[in-house]
């Protein structure tokens, strides 16, 4: 029982990272129907920006988190303007390959500039161990920070999407781009904002991972990127609560599978769940079924 609780705490921490990355995937997919493969690499760059700020400039945790989010949101907007805007009307497969080429570009440019070695993230958060149930459950203060920051960011996102004018524009564009444009929504600007918000969340996730696991490298974004994408699809791609749910669900499943002896198969389990969910409910666990119109 104690082990289960302990694993649940680890699962929630991992899940919040996945959820933060998945949110960006789902928002971008919701608005321009593009699987943004470069999203995992924005998360990697977020981690590197955090690393540079804390190591070379000696900034604290919160300022680095905010600056890193800002840098990532600008990067997200630039990527959208330079790479995705020209291909917005081309075929699905061309868009997908463009996204992959952007992802490769970010990865290997970083490899070129920062060298492929793994780097150690400085201890910017004091590691303080809390023990519960006579030492049977250990909670690191870092876990609590990660979970709290994630919840805060998600609440912020929820506020932006549902209560502000930008959020309203986003929802309108994702529902029907042409109609939104006719109603006077600036589609280009809205797409830019979506990329900015999604990328800033990925940047935050990057800094949090750096703080939590202490190591970063230029290819760290590939696997979490794919996983977060799986999470987004599990919850129903294009649906914001779905990404959060999928992220936590995947984080929990993965931790529980590794805890009970299947650590080598944890990725296979994640993808098997994905395939099963797609077969039963192709629109994701929280998605609505839309009938195809002829």
């Amino acid at each position, binding site marked *: 029982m104690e082990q289960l609780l302990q694993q649940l705490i680890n699962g929630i921490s991992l899940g919040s990272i996945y959820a933060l990355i998945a949110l960006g995937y789902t928002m971008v997919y919701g608005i321009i*129907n593009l*699987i943004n493969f470069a999203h995992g690499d924005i998360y990697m760059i977020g981690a590197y920006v955090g690393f540079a700020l804390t190591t070379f400039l000696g900034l604290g945790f919160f300022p680095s988190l905010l600056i890193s989010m800002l840098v990532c949101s600008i990067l997200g907007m630039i990527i959208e303007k330079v*790479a995705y805007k*020209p*291909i917005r009307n*081309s*075929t*699905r*497969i*061309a*868009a*997908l*390959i*463009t996204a*992959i*080429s*952007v*992802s*490769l*570009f970010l*990865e*290997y*440019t970083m*490899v*070129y500039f920062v060298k492929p070695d793994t780097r150690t993230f400085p201890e910017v958060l004091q590691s303080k161990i809390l023990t519960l149930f006579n030492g049977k459950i250990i909670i690191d203060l870092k876990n609590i920070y990660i979970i709290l920051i994630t919840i805060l960011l998600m609440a912020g996102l929820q506020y932006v999407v549902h209560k502000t004018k930008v959020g309203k524009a986003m929802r309108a564009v994702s529902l*029907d*781009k*042409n*109609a939104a444009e006719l109603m006077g929504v600036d589609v280009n600007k809205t797409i830019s904002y979506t990329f900015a918000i999604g990328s800033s969340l990925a940047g935050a996730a990057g800094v949090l991972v750096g703080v939590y696991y202490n190591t970063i490298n230029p290819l760290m974004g590939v696997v979490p990127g*794919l996983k977060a*994408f*799986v999470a987004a*699809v599990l919850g129903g*791609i294009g649906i914001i609560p779905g990404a959060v749910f999928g992220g936590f669900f995947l984080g929990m499943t993965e931790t529980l599978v590794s805890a009970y002896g299947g650590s*080598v*198969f944890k*990725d*296979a389990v994640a*993808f*098997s769940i*994905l*395939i099963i969910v*797609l*077969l039963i409910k*192709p629109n994701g666990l929280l998605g609505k079924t*839309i009938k*195809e*119109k*002829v």
Partner: protein
Amino acid sequence: MKKNIISFSILTIIYFLVKILLDIGIIDSYLQLNIFLIGINIILAVGLNLITGFTGQFSLGHAAFMSIGAYTSAVFTAKLGQSFIVAILVSGVIAAFAGIFIGIPTLRLKGDYLAIATLGFGEIVRIIALNIDYIGGAIGFNDIPQYTNWTWIFMMTVATVFLIKHFINSYHGRACIAIREDEIAAEAMGINTTFYKVLAFAIGAFFAGIAGSLYANYFYFIKPDSFGFMKSIDILVIVVFGGMGSIEGSILGAILLSIISLFLQGIPELRMVVYSVVLFAIMVYRPTGLLGKGEFKLWKKGAERNVSIESK
């Protein structure tokens, strides 16, 4: 008839020319490696083109079938001591069965969802291969006899192109193209869409298995990570670069991309950066690929766009 004779003689000339150059050592082993890889890539790309380019089913897991073929061939030649021809055929058949097995449930999905499901399948195959000790696990499969030579590569490449070209021009191939153009209309015309989608998938997988077999018996050594997500992407890039729905395009794409990567060997640190920029430039300036057929929708040009489908 005259056309057939011409292409037959051109092929014979290419075959003997390369064979003589190989035998007298003008083509060094490095160039030989690249020529063999071009052949393997052509087989893979033409197979994937049948699935993605002609039948319109978006697959991101083609390397998984290559992996299944490579491991089957390795087991048959190294562990069971079978001859190469048996290993090639069994590899193809087992990969085709894997294609049917994964195709029947997942081909109900469409577009991006199918792409994700096949991506997941590819990762599952890789992880399972990493954890089976009989085939070497993460360390890889060593000491595979080297049977692959120029004759095998050439024969298999020509056979693949020939068979798939004829399949596409057959009754069944036209059914596949109809599914690509409009699945609902094809179904209304009495085409058994599930059957043809699975058939295309199985044929593509069969040839990927053969390519895997050639690959394993050329390099002595295979490991699961050689057949990961990036390999699937590489094959897809060849297909899209050459032009979806064009066999000649796939051949040209495989050759040109190999030449590009050959030139990029000189700058190893920036190789992938340049590659990604080239890829991006192609997608922006020529999204239909070198020999692509104008997005398959030539006749729809100027027609009113259906908003209900566009906005989905």
